[in-house]
């Protein structure tokens, strides 16, 4: 008896055969063990392919680098781009090491704060981050938890660095060069093993590590953990890495001029996307600027009330320094919140410097 060829079996499984053809295959398979086995295998291949291909979904945009990492003269098959990546973008990779380390350590810290419940604390309200910061701000200014956590996250950093290199934009590279220097003691332990590790091969896949809109004005002066309430690791969070749906950021990038950007974090609060940035306006004084995407009109009043309530709560919190908050919308309906240990009048003055 003539066996059914594989192409026909796949056609049968894909319902591409005519009624007659299908009937013929079915009849044969019922009687032929070999073909039945082929059919079973084919079913497995169909299912496995679908599953594998679904892993390709949820790739964010801006994957194509503005400056192509591969050397201009080499064709696709000739060069060894990985080594080029490593040497050319060592500092860039170091930033990613910092990113992964910072993220990993942040998770670690928050896990210990929250009694084992890990949370990336995206979109967390201030009260959650404040205790974490305070508890991690011993005399050494927050550096203490970092070295202990660094050795373990360092290996994680390697993969983040490797897999993310092809995806970075020129902006990110500039920022990386600056920020790599600024990470300071906090990430030194992570940086060294990470850059050494990068000598080995790098994943070529355009993975979505994207360093977001940092526009540091004076980033060299960043000192992690200066005063209570400001201790925050340089949590430069990458979007898209491992996230279920990597949304493209539609928040306007606003910066506070004449201030040092300490950190920036994307998150969500009340179903609105937020960007939370911490700035040092003068030594020891940090304010937080939160930008939130617009809500449908019906929700705006409710959220404004909630934000005001949160601001009030922060004001009366006896453990915190006297914090004040001002809230204002922009023309597009984005809401901005500026919080800091400053009188409201001064916050209003700072608001003029938000561009």
């Amino acid at each position, binding site marked *: 008896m003539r066996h059914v060829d594989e192409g026909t079996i*796949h056609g049968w499984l894909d319902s591409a055969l005519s009624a007659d053809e299908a009937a013929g295959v079915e009849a044969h398979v019922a009687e032929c063990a070999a073909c039945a086995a082929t059919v079973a295998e084919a079913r497995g291949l169909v299912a496995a392919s679908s599953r594998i291909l679904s892993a390709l979904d949820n790739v964010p945009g801006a994957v194509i680098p503005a400056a192509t990492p591969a050397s201009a003269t080499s064709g696709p098959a000739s060069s060894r781009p990985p080594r080029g990546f490593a040497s050319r973008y060592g500092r860039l990779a170091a930033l990613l090491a910092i990113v992964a380390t910072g993220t990993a350590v942040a998770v670690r810290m928050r896990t210990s704060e929250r009694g084992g419940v890990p949370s990336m604390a995206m979109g967390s309200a201030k009260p959650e981050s404040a205790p974490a910061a305070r508890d991690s701000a011993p005399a050494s200014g927050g550096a203490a938890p970092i070295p202990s956590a660094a050795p373990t996250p360092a290996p994680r950093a390697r*993969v983040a660095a490797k897999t993310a290199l092809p995806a970075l934009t020129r902006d990110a590279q500039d920022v990386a060069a600056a920020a790599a220097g600024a990470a300071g003691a906090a990430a030194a332990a992570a940086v060294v093993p990470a850059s050494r590790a990068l000598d080995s091969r790098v994943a*070529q896949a355009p993975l979505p590590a994207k360093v977001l809109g940092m526009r540091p004005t004076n980033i060299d002066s960043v000192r992690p953990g200066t005063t209570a309430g400001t201790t925050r690791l340089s949590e430069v969070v990458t979007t898209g890495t491992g996230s279920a749906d990597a949304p493209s950021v539609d928040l306007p990038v606003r910066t506070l001029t004449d201030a040092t950007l300490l950190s920036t974090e994307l998150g969500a609060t009340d179903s609105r996307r937020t960007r939370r940035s911490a700035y040092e306006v003068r030594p020891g004084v940090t304010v937080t600027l939160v930008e939130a995407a617009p809500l449908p009109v019906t929700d705006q009043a409710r959220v404004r009330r909630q934000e005001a309530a949160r601001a009030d709560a922060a004001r009366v919190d006896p453990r915190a320094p006297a914090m004040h908050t001002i809230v204002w919308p922009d023309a597009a309906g984005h809401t901005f919140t500026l919080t800091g240990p400053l009188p409201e009048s001064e916050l209003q003055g700072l608001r003029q410097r938000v561009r």
Partner: protein
Amino acid sequence: MSDVDRLFRTYHATLVRYLTRRLGDRDWAEDVAQATFVRALRQESIGNERAWLFTVANNLVRDDARKDARRRRHLALLQEAERETVVEPELTELERAQERAMARGAIDALAERDRLALLMREEGLDYTEIAAALDMSVGSIGTTLSRARRRLVEAYEALQDGVRRREGNAAR
């Protein structure tokens, strides 16, 4: 005009997903999808809509790659046969990224036509539509898909094995 609305509502998501999987870049994928529907606006009538849309989308990708050197290099990088993924065991939060990297490596191990045929099949195109889009005979689609699926799975498993081997070495 309402016809293009219907076309858009019916096919936009599947076209974007196909392009995203193919190109590994959501922005580019959405640009191409958008341009495809703009072309549809100018058509008096379209025979097989799905086949037409995918054919046009494929052509636009090819044109993009020709015009834009960066995109050409991007596609070329995607099409490199060699992919290596280095993975550390404790990276749970990057698991999805790892899978994506391996899937990328696996699909890039396929020949172009096999890859496109498989991606289109995943979007529900039938053999006739795939044949029309790729300018192949309907009778050859089954063989193409069987070969594509087998190669994809084998390549993926090879990458997984590579990962496991490295994990084993790293542990020593």
